[in-house]
């Protein structure tokens, strides 16, 4: 055990010493200019991008409209076992393996990529956004921003444990570049935008 530790230490020291002597001494110079694209209507852009990557979005007035709307969005889909944003976490993430629908609040949406930022604080359980069959994320209309640069401005030094951009349903194109939704994670992803 101890010898393993020492072995690890010595690898660390050797690597670091080599890097220190080999890394170039290049002056950083001025940070290069970068003018990100801006969208005249970020909300429309967000919806359009999300649709292009297999997700769906719907504007609503209030969170309590979601259950009704879900029936129209997921017709014929089994949605009996669902988890809501204010539910208590179960002790074991495996207990979520048969979840049909997870409804969670996202922090904000990114127009250019159709992505929604969500952290462990909003996930109920960290496995939930990935293990459910259908994922519903709820954001406020005022929480839609332009680019990922804006996103990291907003995230700042937040102390989340796990944070994820989720952009549409789980997908794969590994079989002859044919796009298939629902690889391992959610088969559908719907974003409710509260006006």
């Amino acid at each position, binding site marked *: 055990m101890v010898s393993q530790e020492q072995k690890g230490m010595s690898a660390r020291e050797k690597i670091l010493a080599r890097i220190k002597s080999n890394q170039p001494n290049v002056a950083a110079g001025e940070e290069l200019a970068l003018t990100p694209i801006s969208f005249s209507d970020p909300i429309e852009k967000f919806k359009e991008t999300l649709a292009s990557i297999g997700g769906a979005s719907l504007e609503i007035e209030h969170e309590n409209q979601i259950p009704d709307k879900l029936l129209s969005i997921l017709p014929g889909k089994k949605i009996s076992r669902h988890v809501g944003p204010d539910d208590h976490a179960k002790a074991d993430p495996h207990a979520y393996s048969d979840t049909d629908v997870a409804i969670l609040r996202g922090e904000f949406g990114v127009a250019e990529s159709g992505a929604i930022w969500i952290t462990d604080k909003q996930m109920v359980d960290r496995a939930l956004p990935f293990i459910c069959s259908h994922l519903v994320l709820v954001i406020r209309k005022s929480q839609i921003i332009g680019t990922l*640069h804006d996103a*990291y401005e907003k995230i700042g030094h937040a102390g989340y444990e796990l944070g994820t951009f*989720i952009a549409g349903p789980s997908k794969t194109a590994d079989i002859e570049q044919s796009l298939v939704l629902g690889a391992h994670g959610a088969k559908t992803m719907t974003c409710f935008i509260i006006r």
Partner: protein
Amino acid sequence: MKNMSRNDHATLANKFNHDEARVNWHDKTLWFVRQKRDKAAKQLPEWEQLRARASQIKAKVLSHLHEYLLEFEKNAVDNGVNVHWAETPEEHNAIVHKIICDHGVDKIVKSKSMLTEECHLNEYLERHGITVIDTDLGERIVQLAGEPPSHIVLPCIHWKKEEIGALFHQHLGTPEGNADPVLLTEAARQHLREKFLTSKVAITGVNFAVAETGEIVVCTNEGNADLGVQLADVHIACMGIEKIVPSRKDLGTFLRLLARSATGQPITTYSSHFRKPRAGQQMHIVLVDNGRSERLASDDFRNALKCIRCGACFNTCPVYRRSGGHSYHTAIAGPIGSILAPALDMKQYGDLPFASTLCGSCSNVCPVKIDIHDQLYKWRQLIVEQGYSSWQKTKGMQVLSNALTSPERYERQGKFLRWLLRKLPFLVKNKFNPWYKQRELPQVPDESFKEWYRKNRKG
């Protein structure tokens, strides 16, 4: 004679080229991905600025890697993560194996990690009695087939759906003759869901490691990294030491470039930032050197360490598209693999820098502006200088350089060659001359331009 392995790129590419229709299909499929990349890139007017910025950030990382690694380590440890260091693939594999053994399991799930491919972790663990389940669909397909991936982003791009159907029929019991991607994907989903639910250890790669926060970012479309990690007791993340970025805000630049360059998507479906393990879970990060720290010293080849493994250079490369990933006989194929591999072993991979037309398309699509084709050219010089090129190439170059360095010899040998080609064409036009393969030689002129000039302009 040092590089006369029968499995060099040209030989393997030749094998791939036996089925012309398949080569055309492979070529077209990859070009389609390249076009999707172009379309995505053109939607951003600031695309070139983004590339320049990304390249600049990576240059900064390489210049201060020592400081950034220490910062990353400190922050990761503060986050409750166990950080390990490995100089070699063997050390890396042993560290991972020990963590697995400490938890008393003999089966693990793994999402895509080019580093573990580089280290041949799967083979190592299998040899030690650990079953490794690759969970990326493409990787699972090639794993079931007993092959390595042929592309870093699209691991089974060389497989036709009918073949995958037959493979799944054999291994997963899908209906015989069914090659429907939806059905096959669903079968893999069910097969792998069971593995996710029963694995106590999950291995992932790392796309970016943030020095400022000690967090790592893993990008997938399938969600396999997330499912694996969130259902496991132990998360082991394996990364090369060059994956560092200084701060969170730099991720904005890289995440905008990565998926657009790779597949033309605006972003991968899941871009997960793992900062702290979940309650009751262990998180390990293994930092691997494997020659990277040596390469930092080289002005010519250092920039290859900027690579973010998007695969854009593969998709655009006329040689890759027509020779297939396995012809590169290394974990990372394509143009970037051809400048990474020789640094690890010039003898074994000395053929790869020659598997290029030096057209420069790779450098033009690279999101971090690596001078790939220049490095290919520089590797060629080094390989010949150090005697690692094939004897035919070395001899040929000697003959050429002998002729081209003296006007007299050039004239004399030119004359002889013209005579030879007229009188004894079979000496040049034969299957032993690689330049004659698939080429018709031009008709030989009776005289050189110089001779013609002397005759016609003198008097």
